[in-house]
């Protein structure tokens, strides 16, 4: 008969767990800022979050890395303590996302925080390539203009870089890059592929929708390898395979310059300076989007925004530049700052 307490203990612990669960349903207001969004903006938001919590009495904001699209979905879900206050984006908000936000009663404040460069790089043991965006388009697009000169599209026949452009070495085309879910891929498609194919007259005069498909569809015959979201992995693969090129964010090139080198694009090497002055062509703006109605409700929102937009953070010698974010020009910073101070909401994308 001495075994009975076992039974009671089990019941008691189950009850205890249920009580904990029940008491949480009536949780009081959230006391930390909740941030979601792009994995490209994540290193920068987290840096600011950390400095912010150390410099003030507020709790450290919780930053989730959900991807730009995933972040927008969560962000536009509604207003309230169970929805995020801020989302990071490695591209501008889409009209459809903004409409969704408006439908759910959310006023969105757009804050551009800086730029990010996208590097095309290979192993340091191989020779540095000098590519044009047209070369990259011809090497990576699924369909390209027929090399015989007739104005038709054919499945990409190019096997080596030399086939694409006689000035390039006769290495096999092998490019490791991010999968379609990635913001880096979107930016690469827009900034490199689209631009590269616009230089070809035959495609430039196509109608818009068809042109987009031709320009942005990457080949699937093994020349472009989707290497996953992890940029460090791509860096490691480049070291192992000297012929391969990789596509990733500038910060990863900056941290691994002993192993890999950035290819010149349209004659410019990817460096901090060349991205900042826009002579390096492949860079994209980074944004954070703020829920206006949460400012003043969730503790520390105003101060967090002030920290993010302070010179010591996003300035030319700020700590975000040290983390690999490329600062905006001074005039642009002042313009954004004025907008943040007034908390002007974004009504549609025409305004900038």
């Amino acid at each position, binding site marked *: 008969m001495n075994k009975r307490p076992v039974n009671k203990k089990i019941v008691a612990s189950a009850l205890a767990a249920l009580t*904990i669960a029940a008491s949480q349903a009536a949780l009081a207001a959230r006391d930390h800022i909740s941030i979601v969004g792009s994995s490209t903006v994540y290193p920068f938001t987290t840096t600011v979050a950390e400095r912010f919590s150390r410099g003030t009495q507020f709790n450290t904001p919780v930053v989730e890395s959900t991807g730009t699209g995933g972040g927008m979905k969560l962000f536009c879900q509604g207003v309230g303590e169970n929805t995020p206050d801020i989302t990071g984006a490695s591209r501008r908000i889409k009209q459809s996302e903004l409409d969704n936000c408006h439908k759910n009663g959310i006023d969105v404040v757009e804050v551009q925080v800086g730029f990010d460069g996208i590097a095309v790089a290979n192993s340091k043991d191989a020779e540095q390539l000098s590519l044009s965006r047209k070369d990259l388009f011809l090497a990576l697009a699924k369909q390209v203009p027929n090399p015989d000169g007739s104005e038709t599209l054919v499945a990409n026949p190019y096997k080596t870089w030399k086939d694409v452009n006689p000035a390039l070495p006769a290495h096999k085309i092998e490019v490791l890059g991010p999968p379609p879910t990635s913001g880096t891929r979107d930016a690469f498609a827009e900034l490199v592929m689209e631009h590269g194919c616009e230089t070809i007259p035959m495609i430039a005069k196509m109608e818009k929708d068809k042109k987009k498909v031709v320009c942005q569809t990457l080949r699937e015959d093994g020349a472009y390898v989707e290497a996953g979201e992890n940029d460090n992995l791509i860096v490691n693969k480049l070291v192992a395979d000297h012929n391969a090129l990789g596509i990733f964010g500038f910060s990863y090139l900056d941290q691994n310059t*002993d192993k890999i080198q950035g290819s010149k694009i349209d004659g410019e090497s990817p460096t901090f300076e060349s991205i900042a002055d826009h002579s390096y062509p492949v860079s994209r703006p980074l944004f954070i989007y703020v829920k206006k109605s949460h400012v003043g409700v969730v503790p520390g929102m105003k101060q967090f925004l002030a920290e993010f937009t302070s010179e010591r953070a996003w300035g030319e010698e700020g700590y975000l530049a040290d983390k690999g974010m490329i600062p905006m020009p001074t005039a642009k910073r002042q313009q954004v700052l004025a907008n943040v101070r007034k908390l002007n909401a974004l009504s549609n994308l025409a305004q900038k």
Partner: protein
Amino acid sequence: MTDSNQSNGHSSVRERIEQGLARRHRKEKIFRGLGIASIAFGILVVALLFTDIISKGAGAFRQTAIELQITYDPAVLGIDKVDHESLTWANFTGVIRESLRARFPEVSGRSDKRELYSMVSSGAPFTLRDRLEANPELLGKTEQVWLAADDDVDTFVKSLDDSKEGFRGRTSEMMAGWIQQLLKSGELKRRFNTAFFTNGDSREPEQAGIRAALVGSLLTLLVTLVLSFPIGVAAAIYLEEYAPKNRWTDLIEVNINNLAAVPSIVFGLLGLAIFINFFELPRSAPLVGGLVLTLMTLPTIIISSRAALKAVPPSIREAAMGMGASRMQVVFHHVLPLAMPGMLTGAIIGMAQALGETAPLLMIGMVAFIVDVPGGVTDPATVLPVQIFLWADSPERAFVERTSAAIMVLLSFLIVMNASAVWLRKKLERRW
């Protein structure tokens, strides 16, 4: 083969059998050889994994630090007394810069000085703040303090092990010179990296630690254990001892087995829809993580508990019944104690599985940057495997070794858990 067979002139049969015997022996040898080969391959892979992780991660347990002569000068600090309020605003950065300028008086010019200041971790002022808060009598005094170096310095110093030149990508000629000078005089050294065990996550590798993730993992597992073990055992007892065998219980059984094989991300989606969107529990909380992992581990626990109950010989039940025990007394006095070791083993294996999960936690917001160590099950938290994932994705060089070091910590937890499962089974198991 007997002699009589031989004498009957069946030597050809014997020959054939002997031939066959040789073939059968050969087959057995090949089979054994294959078995040994596959185990050897397994061991080789595990050994490769461990050497790779340990060789990459061992460095993270030691962090480069700089010894500086720090003067807690009230004028520089801008305070006149030591209390929490004034220390928050005190200029400890100024104190460190003062000390660096005193050590390298020849450095002048804005950008050179900036470079000099960047040698010390941006977390160092907070180290000094905590020191002064703990020892208020230090105000106005001077002492030698070891402060963490910046991760670029750390990476450079560690890369000197592999090559004479070292990794110079983020270290200028001038900075490399200072580092060499400090290394020679013993003012720059690798010391045990306590921050790795006492801090939460940080963007600065030299300040990043696993404590927040570790506590988050423990809280999450606690919720999982408290919920899934009693529910799982109760379900198993009912299904095994009470439930009639009919179409419904068959259906339930098929479903439980099915759930055990459902990809874990599905449980995360379920958790998002039910616990967060419907019950409005907070995001990123170990409570929700524990609930989701409970759903995930329940099938494992139910299946192993049922197997443990089945392994108890029916004679024990019959004997107890024969002595006049009720159904419940039979179960709780006789069957359950005998089945407990098997159930515990199942539970521990389920927990070990839960400890390594990341996918379901992505949906409920536990894949997050957490600096503060969680104090309860509703504080925002993350878990060890998520911490590993986040570090593996970080551009900073110094995170590579921290990733491996965190894997080492996770692996040692898994080994402890699985070893205790084996030990419990050995200790409590009864044989008939």
